[in-house]
């Protein structure tokens, strides 16, 4: 293996940046075809990078990380695959053979990064309590570390120790932890939701919680549809409230005024 040190540094930085880019600017470094091209340039073989990136890109077209789901990270795969193919003078097919298992392995590390950041979240909570605004800011920004390192470290290790390490890790990772973390990742949002429910005046509007639930769970209405229902119910509630208020104040005149305001239909 004859990767130059500067190449290793650049590729590790690239891996770090690619995930951060996808979370922020999104100039495209999260996409295999783009990252493959850049890696190709670093390795001195743009055409190879293009070919590898393009093949991987076509494999993930339209697969996005919605709702925080973890997907195969063929972007990191493209970096490692292109690097190995270039130094061993192999073709794109060889690179894909490396990139795919790497991409699958990265799913686990993505889950880990998403976990780890709850640590900073809770430090943010604490700093809020203490009124330490700089602490709040610092801890939020530190969230970038788990993200970046979740890509940079494995790329670094793989570039140093080679392809065999990939297989080793894939095989030796204990299932009880990996599978367990995946399940935990699936159900963890209940904490955020429960906090939100405690936070909102849920009791007062529990009927609408049920309605939203029935719409999504029984009728499979997608989110925008549920929100439309919510908007309709909110409007009805709003109109009733402003109708009721003047009555309490004992004035019929305001009441009528309120009515007229609603209808654009006057003759």
């Amino acid at each position: 293996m004859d990767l130059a040190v500067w190449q290793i540094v650049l590729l590790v930085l690239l891996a770090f940046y690619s995930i951060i880019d996808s979370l922020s600017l999104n100039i495209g470094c999260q996409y295999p075809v783009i990252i493959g091209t850049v890696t190709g340039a670093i390795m001195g073989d743009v055409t190879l990078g293009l070919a590898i990136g393009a093949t991987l890109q076509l494999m993930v077209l339209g697969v996005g990380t919605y709702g925080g789901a973890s997907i195969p990270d063929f972007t990191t795969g493209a970096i490692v695959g292109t690097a190995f193919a270039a130094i061993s003078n192999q073709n794109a097919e060889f690179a894909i053979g490396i990139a795919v298992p790497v991409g699958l392995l990265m799913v686990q590390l993505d889950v880990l990064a998403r976990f780890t950041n709850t640590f900073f979240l809770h430090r943010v909570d604490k700093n809020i309590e203490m009124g330490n605004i700089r602490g709040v800011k610092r801890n939020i920004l530190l969230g970038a570390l788990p993200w970046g390192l979740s890509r940079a470290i494995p790329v670094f290790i793989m570039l140093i120790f080679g392809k065999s390490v990939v297989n080793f890790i894939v095989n030796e990772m204990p299932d009880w932890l990996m599978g367990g973390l995946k399940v935990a990742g699936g159900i963890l949002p209940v904490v955020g939701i429960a906090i939100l429910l405690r936070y909102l005046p849920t009791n007062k509007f529990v009927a609408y919680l049920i309605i939203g639930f029935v719409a999504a769970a029984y009728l499979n209405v997608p989110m925008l549809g549920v929100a439309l229902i919510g908007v309709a119910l909110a409007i009805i509630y709003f109109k009733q409230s402003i109708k009721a208020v003047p009555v309490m104040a004992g004035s019929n005149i305001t009441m009528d005024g309120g009515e007229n305001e609603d209808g654009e239909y006057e003759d």
Partner: protein
Amino acid sequence: MANMKTEANMINKRDLMAANIRWLLCSQICWNYERMMSTGYLYSILPTLQKLYKGNDLKEMMGVHNQFFNTNPMVGGLILGMDMAIEEREKKEAKEVITGLKTGLMGPFAGVGDTIFGVIVPTVFGSIASYMALKGNPTGVMMWMLVNLLIIGLRFTLLPLGYKQGAKLVTEFADRLNALTDAAVLLGITVVGALIPTVVNAKVAYVYKSGEVTLKMQEMIDQIMPSLIPVLLVALVYGLLGHKKMTSTKAILFVMVLGIVFYNLKILG
């Protein structure tokens, strides 16, 4: 209340721009399973909060903005902008309106944004770039990156747009703030109701087998009620959080352990 509505327009263009840049760069930077983009939102609105509140109010409002939030980052600036306009006018009074609005709008915005910027754009430009790349031509790659730069420009317009809409909302309904609050909270809670079966992912893996008889537990549970497990989990954690000594850290550890245990007992998976 001691709302200082004296300075008519405390939030100026520079503030909007600052929030815009923060949202662009940091909305997901501290993404986590518990509250997803809450910190990103907090970070983006923090300068505004510092302008509007002091002391305990500031603490409280930081807490308000560190609640579960998740939307598509491309279009989320619109919500942020609305929020800023509302808080500027109504300050702490608007606490519930904005929580309601944030919760109510995050879901549909996620759906719309993800479809456009997560499916359509990458599919179209990704396929162009790939087919050109396969022929050794990097033009498609350049093009896609250019498009992404244009999209960044577009994203900058959304927050000011939201700010204007929010301003309209509060001026129109300022005298009926209570009703507006209730309406917003109602919307938010409706969406949370739909979040439970949508965001929480818990499938019972257990399959009863005996000879040729198999009984998929998840199917049985669906027959009782769809998304029963997510509902029970939310209820459980909601209950736990009612105890004095329970913190969200403990809750999250509890749920993590639960996940691992359930997986290894082959109950969930």
